[in-house]
């Protein structure tokens, strides 16, 4: 194709036969791509450099074209580009998972997740779980015949982006609810806007405050820290421990845990000691706890110090059972403890053990595994549950639901057996997952496995 050819004509030639609509059976994205492919023909930006005539470099093509030609070319290219952009935004923008075409209008669930950035893996797991759930619901006929439409936006681990994405969703009346954000700080940032817009949020965060700031639109799809402490209290009571020594980190998770554990009526704390999140030695704290003569230890920390604490306790000759919460669930703690004796007396809370799936976890596990190709994690399970809870809320509702209907529907969910938890919401209780959501794990080799308690 010569440079003199009118690019506007090229584009029109592609678009006209289909009259602005994609051919039947061709996906929007493929169609947009096919336009782009035809546009690629003349390598227009590879003009000859004036400094080195032999070099083909990327530069503005001003030396070989007449001005008029350039203008015509730009107009044509721009209009083509806008057209493609239109298709992209309409069709493949975000990651929509629309199911088989149905007569009934889709129910739209928006999601704002962290898909890029240092901790993107968590958001990606959540997205994979949510997409698998939407596909499974639509395959089974949707919500009373309405397919679930999931629209995912990336916040790049920045609460400001989350707020921007949320503002866009808020003005779209077809968005009935939101799943997100991956991080509690971003959820807190969009919470006031959600309250204003009346959009219910299915929040995958453990952050205690999100459901305790008087915002009636936030529903937690995760285990709250107070529920973790409830599970700990039940175990302490069942095993009859009377004197608990508590070590906690000085970050928000540790402090909140300290407040909840020391005020629990079932747990008698004889001594509590704090340590910095990045602590590399807990011997001094353990020495103090030891002198209070406890019959069990609780190591409550979201950082890497739990394994160090287990090792130091062994070195001090403390032969006691040790309990930790969900946040200690990281193989780094097993590595840090380095095979010491106390490792065998350590129990920690968990939600999902791939080797011992609970009946309520099997379907979701297989579905996510087959669509994403890896063993689902806790975050994929939460993504799965969020979409199913959304469906659950609308299952008994009208054909033309509002955002308020989703809120009302969620508040009627009782004992829903999800993959990452067992959920109950009430008018004043939005924490969702109850202590039955959790299992006790123990270290085995370099991984965790279900422990009988």
């Amino acid at each position, binding site marked *: 194709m010569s440079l003199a050819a009118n690019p506007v004509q090229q584009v029109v030639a592609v678009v006209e036969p289909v009259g602005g609509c994609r051919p039947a059976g061709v996906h929007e994205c493929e169609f947009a791509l096919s336009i782009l492919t035809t546009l690629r023909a003349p390598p227009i930006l590879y003009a000859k450099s004036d400094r080195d005539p032999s070099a083909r470099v990327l530069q503005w093509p001003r030396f070989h074209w007449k001005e008029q030609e350039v203008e015509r070319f730009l107009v044509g290219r721009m209009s083509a580009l806008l057209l493609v952009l239109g298709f992209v935004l309409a069709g493949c923008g975000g990651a929509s998972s629309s199911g088989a075409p149905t007569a009934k209008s889709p129910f739209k669930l928006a999601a704002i997740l962290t898909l890029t950035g240092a901790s993107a893996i968590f958001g990606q797991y959540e997205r994979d779980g949510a997409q698998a759930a939407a596909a499974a619901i639509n395959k089974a006929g949707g919500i009373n015949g309405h397919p679930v439409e999931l629209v995912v936006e990336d916040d790049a681990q920045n609460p400001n982006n989350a707020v921007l994405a949320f503002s866009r969703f808020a003005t779209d009346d077809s968005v009935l609810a939101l799943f997100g954000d991956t991080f509690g700080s971003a959820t807190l940032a969009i919470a006031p806007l959600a309250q204003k817009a009346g959009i219910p949020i299915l929040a995958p965060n453990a952050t205690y405050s999100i459901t305790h700031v008087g915002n009636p639109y936030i529903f937690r799809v995760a285990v709250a820290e107070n529920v973790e402490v409830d599970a700990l209290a039940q175990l302490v009571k069942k095993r009859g421990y009377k004197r608990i020594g508590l070590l906690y980190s000085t970050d928000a998770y540790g402090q909140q845990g300290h407040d909840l554990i020391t005020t629990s009526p079932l747990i008698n704390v004889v001594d509590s000691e704090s340590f910095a999140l990045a602590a590399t030695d807990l011997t001094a704290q353990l*020495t*103090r706890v030891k002198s209070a003569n406890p019959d069990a230890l609780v190591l409550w920390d979201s950082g890497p110090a739990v394994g160090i604490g287990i090792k130091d306790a062994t070195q001090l*000759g403390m032969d006691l059972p040790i309990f930790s919460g969900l946040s200690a669930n990281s193989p780094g*703690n097993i590595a840090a403890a*380095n095979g010491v004796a106390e490792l065998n007396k350590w129990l920690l809370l968990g939600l999902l053990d791939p080797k011992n799936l609970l009946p309520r976890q099997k379907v979701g596990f297989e579905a996510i595994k087959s669509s994403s190709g890896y063993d689902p994690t806790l975050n994929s399970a939460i993504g799965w549950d969020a979409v199913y809870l959304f469906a659950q809320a609308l299952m008994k509702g009208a054909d033309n639901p509002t955002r308020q209907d989703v809120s009302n529907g969620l508040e009627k969910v009782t004992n829903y057996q999800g993959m990452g938890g067992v959920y109950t919401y009430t008018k004043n209780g939005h924490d969702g997952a109850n202590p039955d959501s959790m299992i006790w794990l123990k270290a085995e080799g370099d991984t965790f496995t279900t422990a009988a308690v």
Partner: protein
Amino acid sequence: VTVIANESLQFLFTGLAIGSIYALVALSFTFIFNAGGVVNFAQGEFVMLGGFFAVTLTTWQVPLWLAAAGAVMGVGLVAGVIYMTTIRRLPNASTFTLIMITLGLAIVIHTIAQLVWGTQAKTLPELRGGEPFRIAGASITAHAILVMAVSATLMVMLYLFFKRTRAGQAMLAYSDNREGAALVGVNAKRVGLAAFILGGAVGGLAGFLVTPITTVNYLIGLTFTLKGFSAAVLGGFGNAGGAVAGGLLLGLLETFSTGILPSGYEGLVPLTILVLILMVRPGGIFGSRALFN
């Protein structure tokens, strides 16, 4: 008070064990400062790299002593490359510019470490495992005693190196006055490179030795930098004996304040005492580089 009396021996042991880690890091700070004239805020990252190199080597079934050698040489090499690509290209940079550069390098190094080794903590077997020694109800591991012994040996070796050898004297001269040293025939570029390679190697050795105690993760370098720098300043910056004394003192202060004070206040006291000591003796306990001048 009874608690303090009963447990003070344990606090003493723990304080000395932690303190000898700080002392090791402070020594590697001292080395690069004395030899290259650079306050290297990426020093803690060298310690972290030493730990990770040794961890990776042991996962390849390399014997522990060879992993130690690998950590020492590997970090020395990395430090040398860093010197050649950054600091050497800025012969006239001021102290503040160099501090900013090393801080930037620290962020680069720990980000790369996160990409290579992930975010999980890793550890090494202790050089001498088994049951810890128990003395009057207090316990201390053989490995902690070993770390103390290495700190002491390294301190003596550094002292002799800077005091007795021509290379050491040349390095001291270079860090004191670059132009003057060049005038009397010190090859500035070679001395700067040697300082970084050896400083990196000392950091790598520290990393290998402390990993069984503290574990290693990609963010731990900053902790080492802060503690090692505080220890070096406390003892007298640039002074090998001061680095060890400062490290042990800081470790003891931290452990005893954790043991004696109410929970939550333990972070406050060591730094308060550090500030007080520096107000009375601005050059640190032993004075900056007093042993060498």
